[in-house]
């Protein structure tokens, strides 16, 4: 199922870091696990409601939750409201790494990305992953052999939310600036484009998609300020011609 609300978790993860820093808690050892935990909780709550639906309804309801968070962010004047808030200081790791150094920050992100990919890969191929993929393939069949898809899907949703929370924590440290816009549907849309462009059905796909989208954006920005007018049609074309996304280009066709 496709969620259109993962910006909510990105924003929450970022805001957790921002708010904790606001109150003087700058240790990343605390901030990041709290960001992940808060997002897991939020995902459990949102998921418990939205996973009862599917298809377009699921997209709409996750979108609605994200928009709720967006307006919550706007209404929180203490934390900058509409204008957002500047991060008082980057997360600290007992002097182990300095995140304000761009190079070490890059390596932290890279390491976490590789870790996330590896984790995802393990999960996808585990018993749990098989249940999730089976439920996607044929839900009636899954129910008939005794899997109740709901709990498994909810768990997957929580895992995804938690990972997004970590991404949010990283994002806050990257931009040093947090706005409610992180929770807006535009952000979710960007995430969706990355996934669709890269290929939904694989672990590598979304990573490829993220690189491709950001690189395409940067190149087009160099050419013209109306870059979106070119990127849009490109995305449409990619959906039409690469049904399985960029990752699909590297797969052998089914025998």
């Amino acid at each position, binding site marked *: 199922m496709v969620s259109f609300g993962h910006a909510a978790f990105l924003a929450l993860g970022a805001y957790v870091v921002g708010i904790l820093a606001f109150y003087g808690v700058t240790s990343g050892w605390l901030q990041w696990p709290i960001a992940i935990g808060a997002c897991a909780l939020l995902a459990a709550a949102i998921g418990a409601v939205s996973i009862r639906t599917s298809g377009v309804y699921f997209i709409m309801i996750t979108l609605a939750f994200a928009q709720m968070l967006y307006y919550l962010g706007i209404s929180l004047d203490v934390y900058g409201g509409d204008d957002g808030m500047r991060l008082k200081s980057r997360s600290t790791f007992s002097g182990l790494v300095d995140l304000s150094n761009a190079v070490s920050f890059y390596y932290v992100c890279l390491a976490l990305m590789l870790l996330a990919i590896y984790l995802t890969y393990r999960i996808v191929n*585990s018993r749990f992953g*098989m249940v999730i993929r089976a439920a996607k393939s044929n839900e009636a*069949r899954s*129910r008939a*052999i005794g*899997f109740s898809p709901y709990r498994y899907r909810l*768990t997957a949703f929580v895992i995804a939310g938690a990972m997004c929370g970590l991404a949010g924590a990283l994002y806050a440290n990257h931009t040093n600036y947090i706005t409610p816009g992180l929770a807006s549907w535009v952000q979710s849309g960007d995430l969706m484009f990355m996934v669709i462009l890269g290929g939904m059905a694989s672990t590598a796909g979304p990573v490829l998609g993220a690189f491709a989208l950001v690189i395409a954006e940067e190149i087009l920005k160099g050419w013209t300020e109306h870059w979106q007018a070119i990127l849009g049609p490109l995305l449409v074309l990619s959906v039409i011609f690469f049904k399985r996304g960029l990752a699909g280009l590297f797969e052998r066709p089914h025998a």
Partner: protein
Amino acid sequence: MLEVRGLTKSFGALRASDGIDFDVRERETHAVIGPNGAGKTTFISQLAGDLRPDAGRIVFGGEDVTALPAPRRARKGLARSFQITSVYNEFSALDNVALAVQARSGHSYRFWRDARRDPTLREPARLLLDEVGLGERANVVAANMSHGEHRQLEVAMALALEPRLLLLDEPMAGMGIEESQRMIGFIAGLKGRYSIVLVEHDMDAVFRLADRISVLVYGRMIATGEPQAIRANPEVRAAYLGEDA
């Protein structure tokens, strides 16, 4: 072991199940026959838990399961095959059966080990594929298998659940003569090892396999009895056998 009393289900004005009483004894093969639109699939869907009856009671192994959803019933040992083929098309035959093995081996909140390299799932699955005659086709993606093979695969998945009761919804549907003969032979081999509810159109198969037969016409069980008695029953002949014979 299965006891159904007063099962009733309506779709609008249509009474698809109208006060059905039905029993399955331990290790019995009980066939349900009836003309098209008699409500056979509606009936079996209620047994499996995919449809909630409007009224009536289903008792399985001494326990009232009327309110239990399908996955819970499956875990209690009630396994079904579908009239319209229902397998995991994207997965190999072996994956399909291994998933069914996994379904009956406790919870699946295991996130780390590769399920496809887990011998406790793969080995039983392989044996079951051999048993239904798909051993050679274990690594073929289900989407690329023939209709007959899909039916065999469904049976393998149902058996993987180590069921106490098998619900076979037209296992011979859409099969060629040779394939259905093989399937009949295979079900004959299961007979006596499992309790079986067999919904089937193929009269030849029903009279060869069933210990007892129930006849469903317009949502009502008009007769239940041994094959000879059913064959001789004038009401049944009028309602159903007359069409074929």
